[in-house]
């Protein structure tokens, strides 16, 4: 057996992230008093280096996969990495601020964030199911720890729940890989596709594999009925971690979802489209309806993220470039919006998780007009009201689904948006139209505000000038294999 050629260029972003994580870990052990600011700066440097390494791949002219077919090199990967890394940068800054204020600051936070990010980016570019599983585990294990990073009971409970259910879903995923191997004799995505296209593989086994992998992905993107963990984990995790996790995991998992289904299972598209259809429909409806009943803003946003997973799936029902392009735009808009929204939640709860009930938002516009304004913007984007990025994103996925002929699904989508508008609106009503009930003072520091200006700007700019990125996303929507 010949030794495969080792080209590290396409996984340089992950190498850098892991490298910086190790440096931070060692630094934490060896240097007595590490200034937290230094830790943030080093982490951000790591993320920036990874981003640079990843953007360099835009014009990669080597093979479509490297490292014996383990890692893909396409522009899709570049774009997804860019999204995940941006989310990570915001997440690191917010998390730093969060733990400094709550007095739970520990060195491990920063390397864990970088490791989770490395897992996410690797998940997005895996061209082999085994690599995908590896990446999935890297990101999941880091996130389990991050969820339980605070000593609050809720945080620990969330981590436990996430870990148990996550392990369960990993098992499904692994079982799916085994089935895929059984069906086609390979775990490499292009090889699976070839085997299925050439009818050399067993279609029955392949469909089973597709179903099992779908369960694994649905768990990670929190699509109904595999969403049970989401509200508890989102509520329990430290808010800054929730923001990072809800945006980053979803982007990475959807990227892998798209790649696996549009590449490996491309020959059995007719079999997986109905699966995605059903997942999308129930996620959109259940997420929107259940969110109405919530009284805690983090839980409400958790259910909202479930319904948004449904909207991305709506885009995925259109197999191929159109669906991928639409879903990518949706992910950009969603991740900017949701990390922003959780950022404001963090600011409002001031220290730790004290004020996350909706009643704490009464009269916020009076006490902190900036926080209220930012949260309104993010909520309107989640509701899909123009001129925000959320609106353009919705139109894009509706278009993709209409093209695929699934207009009843689009009808479900638009009607659920109206239902969803109600609970987003309720928060705006509280902030602007009610008098403060409790004596809560939001966090007045400048750092989170400045950080949150970034996603806020993106939400508006991509809402008004979507053309700025649509061109890139269209080029990235082609999966090369």
């Amino acid at each position, binding site marked *: 057996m010949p030794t495969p050629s080792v080209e590290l260029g396409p996984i340089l972003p992950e190498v850098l992230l892991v490298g910086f994580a190790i440096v931070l870990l060692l630094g934490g052990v060896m240097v007595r008093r590490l200034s937290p600011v230094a830790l943030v700066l080093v982490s951000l440097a790591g993320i920036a280096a990874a981003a640079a390494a990843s953007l360099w791949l835009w014009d990669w002219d080597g093979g479509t996969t490297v490292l014996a077919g383990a890692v893909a090199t396409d522009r899709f990967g570049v774009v997804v990495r860019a999204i995940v890394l941006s989310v990570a940068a915001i997440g690191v800054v917010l998390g730093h601020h969060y733990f400094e204020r709550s007095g739970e600051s520990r060195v491990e936070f920063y390397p864990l964030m970088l490791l989770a990010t490395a897992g996410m980016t690797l998940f997005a570019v895996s061209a082999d199911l085994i690599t995908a599983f590896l990446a999935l585990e890297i990101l999941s294990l880091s996130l389990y720890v991050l969820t339980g990073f605070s000593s609050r009971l809720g945080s620990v409970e969330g981590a436990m729940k996430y870990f148990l259910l996550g392990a369960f879903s990993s098992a499904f995923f692994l079982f799916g890989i085994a089935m895929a191997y059984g069906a086609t004799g390979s775990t490499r995505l292009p090889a699976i596709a070839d085997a299925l296209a050439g009818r050399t593989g067993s279609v029955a086994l392949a469909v089973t594999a597709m179903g099992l992998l779908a369960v694994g992905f649905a768990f990670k993107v929190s699509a109904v009925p595999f969403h049970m963990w989401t509200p508890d984990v989102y509520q329990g995790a430290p808010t800054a971690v929730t923001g990072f996790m809800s945006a980053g995991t979803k982007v990475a998992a959807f990227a892998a979802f798209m790649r696996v289904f549009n590449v490996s299972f491309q020959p059995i598209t007719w079999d997986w489209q109905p699966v995605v259809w059903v997942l999308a429909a129930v996620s959109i409806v259940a997420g929107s309806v259940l969110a109405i009943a919530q009284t805690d803003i983090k839980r409400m946003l958790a259910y909202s993220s479930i319904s948004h997973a449904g909207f991305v799936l709506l885009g995925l029902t259109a197999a191929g470039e159109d669906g991928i392009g639409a879903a990518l735009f949706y992910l950009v808009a969603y991740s900017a919006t949701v990390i922003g929204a959780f950022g404001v939640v963090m600011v409002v709860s001031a220290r730790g998780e004290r004020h996350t009930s909706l009643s704490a938002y009464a009269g916020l516009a009076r006490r902190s007009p900036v926080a209220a304004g930012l949260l309104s913007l993010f909520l309107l984007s989640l509701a899909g009201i123009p001129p925000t990025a959320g609106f353009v994103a919705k*139109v894009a996925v*509706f278009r993709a689904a209409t093209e695929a002929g699934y207009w009843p699904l689009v009808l479900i989508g*638009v009607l659920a948006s109206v239902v969803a508008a109600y609970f987003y609106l309720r928060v705006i009503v509280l902030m602007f139209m009610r008098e403060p009930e409790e004596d809560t003072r939001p966090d007045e520091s400048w750092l989170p505000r400045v950080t949150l200006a970034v996603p806020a700007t993106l939400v508006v700019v991509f809402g008004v000038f979507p053309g700025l990125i649509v061109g890139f996303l269209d080029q990235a929507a082609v999966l090369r294999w």
Partner: protein
Amino acid sequence: MPWLTLVIFLPLVGIPVLGLWSRASDVQARVAALVVALATFLVALGVLGAFDPAVAGYQLVEQVDWVPSAGLSYLVGVDGFSIWLVVLTAFMTPVAIVSSWGVGHRVRLFMALTLLLETAILGSFLALDLLLFFVFFEALLVPMFLVIGVWGSARRVYASVKFFLYTMAGSAFLLLAVVYLWFQTSEQLGHASFDIRQVEQLSLATTTQRWLFLAFFIAFAVKVPIFPLHTWLPDAHTEAPTNGSIVLAALLLKAGPYGLLRFNLDLFPEASRYFADAIGILAVVGIVYGALVAMMQTDVKRLVAFSSVSHMGFVILGIFTFTVQGTSGAVMQMVNHGLSTGLLFFVVGALYERTHTRDLSEMGGLAKVTPWIAAAFLVATLSSIGLPGLNNFVGEFLVIVGAFGTDRVLGAVAVSGVVLAAIYMLWAYQRAFQGPGSERHGRLADLVPREIAAVVPVVAVMLALGVYPKLVLDRINPSSAGVVAWVRSVDADQTGLPGGLRAQLGPVDADEVAIVAEGSP
């Protein structure tokens, strides 16, 4: 000169000013907003000056690629339908700003939202790109929602949420239809487009066309509002602050009939013919129902709100007669309703500021105390009930003539709306301003010069339109003739739509246009 872009976005200039000028006193904030709104009005007059009355199609068209790969463009243009609505919007916004001079809290935000609303309304009247229209149409909701919910009266939160959800539910269907049409353009024309001039080239199967018509119709029917989708309106109008009521009644409601005229008739002529009878009946039901309910109100704002339901019925009736008189009358009536209902809300607001009640039974004899308010209310009342010589008469007359031409029964029933209007409006006037005065309103301030300065121009325009409607109608008629010819060229039950036919059509026969062009009798 990009007149249309200028007029749409000029109000936005005020927003950073109001946002950053944190030291501005309340008066300074109001003045800043007023200056911006007046400047916008001047630009709107510039648009009117640049408008060529002889042309039936879109004028002053500006097109900039927005997202080329998606076929999305920033495309605005004006024609005989939108020109007056634009002028009306720019004219009534300063009036609205003056009307809420007394609002004392969060003035900067209030004024910024008013200007934002103006931009969104102007944008939806001028957009010729379906998605751009939708963006403006939907963007209206948020500022209006906040204006009602933050500065409204007792049940403001309920009213604002109801307004938002109702309208959003309606436009959800619109979005679905727009996306479908977008998809069809890329299938049939080979390139995706939201340009309505492209979309009207599509040939759509009859059934598809009818479903799409309904999707558009629901969105606009909620806005108009057409009976039975009107239930949000009395709440929203009543609870809104005066400023909000004026913008809502005078301007925002016009987006509904405008949308029907611009999009439903234009894109789905066969379906328009098919549903015309049903919609005509709904319109007439709305006319009579609105009038009857208005008669029963003791809350004067609610009364005016229900009178809007009745008056908007005329507009819808006119549009679906498919006659030049009816269509021109409907457009004229939109402008008229904006002016007279705007004035009514202004006066009612002024009255409320002084008496702190909207209940007619607590008023009475106010004509002696506040003669200016009484006079302004009387003018608005007389206009509302269609007194010849004032603006409303012309519009209603044309609509009824049009309706008689197509369906005598509908026309006859619609006339009763005029009679009922006389009853409820005059009765309201009597209860508020005549009879024995109530003790506690012994000393009330009359209109101050600032308010007089807002009322007088509105009254002057109402008189001018009543006496010389030709000024307005001349610019509306070519567009009316064009759209009527288009709709009439297609038979109901015609299968499939002849793509691209619209361009080959001339206006309807000259006689019919001539009748309207002569103006009011």
